[in-house]
């Protein structure tokens, strides 16, 4: 049995009836109306509880929670820079390890968390993240992926999907919009042979919270890739974050899975997948795409989903469940 399976063998999940009331992130934060990212962060914090230290990258979830003299954080929190949340978390974790061992403190159960957006994680912070995963620190890293640099005004990142319009990948006579395919960061995390990797979205809150809790329970590094709709950047309705996140799963754009000790496990089998046009429809960032463009993207999405299914052992053992 691998170290993650061992740690999770008595895992008890959340359900809608036993939702923890704790809100380590307070209201009064300045996220945009209908922000899917802060919803994901809120749910993650409910799962983590209060015995944590949060290490934040620069980005939306830093800016909206910390303008002096107010903080939305009821738990210890540190923001240093854009690209180094995983390194800062490495330092905090090592400090606790040394001080616990030396008898300076007695706090062996604190959970250390680094988090950032897709830019902070997949672009500028990938080196610090890779280093921290490779060194094996006992920490959780959460990437809240809203598929562009939203905080600075919707510029493209390596997390931006093919075809999406952003302010630095604008569609035009000579441009389809984003001309590259989304970087597969969960696969990169898996390649570090860490005990736990998972994908999640706030449309499936119980699934998200269970994965966060598992990530915290597993010794060693855990990586969570959390798909986080941004109505401001995706140009959808402010009431549509959850719906779009659900459509992303239902259209196979964002498959939900875990990788436990290197073994892929599908969290949610998409029995009757919706065409990506349904997913694209509420989002103006895809509105310029032609039928041919959409067909090309559909083909790629299908292939990537098949690849995940294969990794999960054929049809996937996931279950279709209601939340």
């Amino acid at each position: 049995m691998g170290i993650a399976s061992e740690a999770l063998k008595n895992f008890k999940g959340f359900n809608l009836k036993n939702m923890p009331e704790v809100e380590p992130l307070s209201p009064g934060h300045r996220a945009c109306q209908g922000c899917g990212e802060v919803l994901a962060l809120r749910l993650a914090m409910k799962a983590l509880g209060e015995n944590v230290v949060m290490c934040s990258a620069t980005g939306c979830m830093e800016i909206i929670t910390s303008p002096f003299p107010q903080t939305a954080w009821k738990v210890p929190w540190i923001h240093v820079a854009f690209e180094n949340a995983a390194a800062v978390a490495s330092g905090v974790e090592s400090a606790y390890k040394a001080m616990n061992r030396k008898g300076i403190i007695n706090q062996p159960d604190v959970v250390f968390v680094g988090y950032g957006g897709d830019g902070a994680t997949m672009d500028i912070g990938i080196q610090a993240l890779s280093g921290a995963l490779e060194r094996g620190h006992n920490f959780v890293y959460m990437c809240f992926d809203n598929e562009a640099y939203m905080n600075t005004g919707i510029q493209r990142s390596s997390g931006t999907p093919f075809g999406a319009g952003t302010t630095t990948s604008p569609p035009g006579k000579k441009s389809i919009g984003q001309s590259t395919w989304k970087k597969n960061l969960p696969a990169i995390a898996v390649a570090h042979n860490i005990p736990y990797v998972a994908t999640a979205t706030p449309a499936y809150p119980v699934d998200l919270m269970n994965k966060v809790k598992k990530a915290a329970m597993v010794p060693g590094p855990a990586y969570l890739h959390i798909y986080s709709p941004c109505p401001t950047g995706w140009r959808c309705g402010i009431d549509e974050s959850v719906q779009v996140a659900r459509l992303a799963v239902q259209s196979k754009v964002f498959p939900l899975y875990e990788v436990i000790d290197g073994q892929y496990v599908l969290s949610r089998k998409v029995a009757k997948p919706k065409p990506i046009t349904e997913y694209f429809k509420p989002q103006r960032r895809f509105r310029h795409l032609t039928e041919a463009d959409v067909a090309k993207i559909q083909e790629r999405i299908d292939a990537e989903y098949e690849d995940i299914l294969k990794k999960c052992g054929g049809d996937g053992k996931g279950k279709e469940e209601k939340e």
Partner: protein
Amino acid sequence: MAKETGIISWKKLNLGIAITEPGNASQLKTGDWRSMKPITDREKCTKCGQCYIYCPDMVYSKDAEGYFVQNYYYCKGCGICAKECPVDAITMVQEVD
């Protein structure tokens, strides 16, 4: 420390301007941002809690009868609760003075 503004003397700042009042952002009235307001029809409400779980702004809490009630001090009026309510018990209505 000045409660709601950052207008204070440099002598009164914590080291590195650290903030030592956990969660004091709860002072901030984000309800001012709202133009539409969610209203729950208790006839239809099944107390399922979807509004509570999907709210990005921690607006909902359970009352003594098990209903989830809005704290309009924080509600930014995004309407996710109305959209996600499985029995359409929540309606967004225009804010008026």
